[in-house]
C-alpha cells in the first residue's frame, strides 16, 4: 500500500508557533514516536510538520517494571516511567539522525526539580538542530512531596521561567489535564514567558485484573491516552483558547484529519498525533493527507483559516 501521494505544493499549510515556522500543523506526540528512526520504514519523515521526541531527562532512566501498558476501551494506559537515554546520549546518539531529517525537532524535557529543567534547557540550547523545547510538567516535583508541577500554577510558572531564562529556543509548555481549571495553569505559564502551550498530556487512570486481583500496571496508576480522551482534550483546548493569546498545540486522541481540524476549530494552531501512531504508524501522514484534501475541497486560502473558527450561538 503506497502512501497517498497528494500534490500539496500550491497549498498553504504553514503555521507558526511563536518564532517557529512549521510547513504544516501535524507533529508527533512525545513518547509515541520514539526518536523517529523507528518509523522510517513506514513514514516519509520529511513530510511531518515537526517531530517531538520522547521525554528526556538529565540522567538516563530505566523506567518502571512491567507491565507498563494496558489497553482500555478506545484507549490505553501507560506507565513507562519516563524511560529515556538521558540528555547526553540523546544529543550524541539521536540528534544527528533527527537533525538530518529536515524537519523541526522539538525536544520534550522532564525533571524532578526546577533546577533539572534549567540544566536540561541549557544543555539542549547548545545542541545543534533543536528547534524548540516542550516542557513536560506532568512530572512529580520531588521537593514538593511529589505533587506534579503541572497541577500548580506557581510551580508550572517557576519551571517555565527557569527554562526560558536558560535558552533562546521557543518554549512550549505541555499542560496536564488532571486539574480543576486548566486555564489557571495556562495563564500562569503564559505570564512566565511560555511561547506556546500544548495539551493535553494523559489523564490519570487505573485498571485491575480481576483474576489476580492486582493492578494491570506495576505502577498501579498510569496515563490514559487515545480516542477515549479526545472529548476532554478538545474541551480543554477550547477553554485555554479563550484564556491565553499564545499559540496552542492540540493533543489527545487524534487519529484523522477530522479530529485534527476539530482541535484547530477549537483554537489550536497545530496538533500532535500520539497513540494513533501505534495502531497506524502512518497516522501523521494520514492526518496530513486528509487535511490537504479538506483545504483543497473547501478552497481555503490557508489551513490557518480553521484556527479558532468554531461557530458558537
Amino acid at each position, binding site marked *: *500500500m503506497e502512501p497517498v501521494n497528494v500534490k500539496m505544493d500550491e497549498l498553504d499549510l504553514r503555521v507558526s508557533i511563536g518564532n517557529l515556522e512549521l510547513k504544516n500543523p501535524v507533529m508527533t506526540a512525545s*513518547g509515541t514516536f*520514539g526518536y523517529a528512526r523507528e518509523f522510517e*520504514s513506514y513514514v516519509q519523515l520529511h513530510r511531518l510538520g515537526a517531530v517531538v521526541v520522547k521525554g528526556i531527562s538529565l540522567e538516563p532512566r530505566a523506567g518502571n517494571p512491567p507491565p507498563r501498558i494496558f489497553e482500555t476501551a478506545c484507549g490505553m494506559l*501507560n506507565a*513507562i516511567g519516563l524511560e529515556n537515554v538521558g540528555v547526553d546520549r540523546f544529543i550524541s546518539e539521536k540528534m544527528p539522525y533527527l537533525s538530518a531529517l529536515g524537519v523541526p525537532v522539538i525536544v520534550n524535557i522532564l525533571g524532578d526539580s526546577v533546577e533539572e529543567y534549567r540544566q536540561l534547557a541549557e544543555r539542549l540550547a547548545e545542541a545543534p538542530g533543536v528547534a524548540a523545547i516542550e516542557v513536560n510538567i506532568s512530572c512529580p516535583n520531588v521537593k514538593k512531596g511529589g505533587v506534579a508541577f503541572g497541577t500548580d500554577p506557581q510551580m508550572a510558572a517557576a519551571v517555565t521561567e527557569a527554562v526560558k531564562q536558560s535558552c533562546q529556543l521557543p518554549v512550549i509548555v505541555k499542560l496536564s489535564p488532571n486539574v480543576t481549571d486548566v486555564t489557571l495553569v495556562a495563564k500562569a505559564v503564559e505570564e512566565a514567558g511560555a511561547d506556546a502551550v500544548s495539551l493535553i498530556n494523559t489523564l490519570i487512570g487505573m485498571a485491575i485484573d480481576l483474576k489476580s486481583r492486582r493492578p494491570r500496571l506495576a505502577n498501579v496508576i498510569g496515563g490514559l491516552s487515545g*480516542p477515549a480522551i479526545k472529548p476532554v482534550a478538545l474541551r480543554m483546548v477550547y477553554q485555554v483558547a479563550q484564556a491565553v493569546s499564545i499559540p496552542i498545540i492540540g493533543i489527545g486522541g487524534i487519529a484523522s484529519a477530522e479530529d485534527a481540524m476539530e482541535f484547530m476549530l477549537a483554537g489550536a494552531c497545530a496538533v500532535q498525533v500520539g497513540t494513533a*501512531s501505534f495502531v497506524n504508524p502512518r497516522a501523521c501522514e494520514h492526518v496530513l493527507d486528509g487535511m490537504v484534501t479538506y483545504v483543497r475541497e473547501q478552497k481555503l486560502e490557508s489551513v490557518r483559516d480553521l484556527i479558532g473558527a468554531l461557530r458558537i450561538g
Partner: protein
Amino acid sequence: MSQFQQKVELIQSEVIAAGIVRLTLSAPDIAAAAVPGQFVMVQTAPGLDPLLRRPFSIHQVSSDGFLQILFKVVGRGTERLAQCRAGEHLSLLGPLGNGFALGESAHACLVGGGMGIAPMLFLASHFLRQSQVAVPPRVILGARNSEELVPLMGDFLDLGFEVLAATDDGSFGYHGLVTDVLKTLNLTSQSTVYSCGPRPMMAAIHHLCQNQHVPCQVSVETVMACGMGACLGCAVPLRAGGYAHACSDGPVFDAGELLWSL
C-alpha cells in the same frame, strides 16, 4: 531492515483444535523478508475497539508468498480474528523484532509449549532448508492434553520431524513437562536450545541449560502497543539491571541475559 504496513488478504481460516485457529494470509513482501522468531502486529477489528494491534509469531511462510499465524482465542482481539473469513483483508505490520540467532550449532533442539509451538514450525522448516546441518534438529512439543497437542504436531510430522511429545495430563506422549523430556536428551555445549512457551516453562529450560552449559534462546511474550520500539511498553527485566524491549531487542533473547526470578 524491510518492514511493511499492508492490508493483506485472508486466504484461509482453519480451526485446528478447540479455540485454536490458523490463518493463512497472502503477504508476499512480509513472508519474503521474515526470519524465524519474528512476529507481525495484526489489526483485529476495523473500528476503535479493540484499539491496539495484537502480536503473533510468524508460524510459517511459503515461497509463494503465504504467511500463517496460529493462535488461541483468549480475548476480544483473538475472538474477532477467529471470526474473519477468507476474502477479508487484515492490516499487518511486519516482519518485526529479532528472530532466532541461527548459528552453526550441529545439535539444535526446538522446544515449544502451548501456543509457543507457533514460531517453532517456521524455525524447523528453516533448518530443513539448511543443507549444511548434518543432524536434523530435535523437536519437543508440549501442551495441556492430546486434543490440543496432536493437531499442532501434524505439520512437524509432515516435514519429516520426529516429535517428542509431552502433555500435562498424560493423554498423549510423555506425562509431564517438556523439561523432563529435554533432560533425557544428550545436550552438550555444542547444542542450542530454541524455546518458546509459558514463562515457567522457559524459566525451567533456562535453568536446565544453564546448569549443563547449553546455549539457550527464548522467545518471550509481553503486552505490546506498537511492536516497533516506539512506546517502550514491552519492557523485559535484564539480569544486568534495567530493561530490554521485547519487540525491538527481542522477542528472542539469550536466556542468560534475562532476569528469571521475577
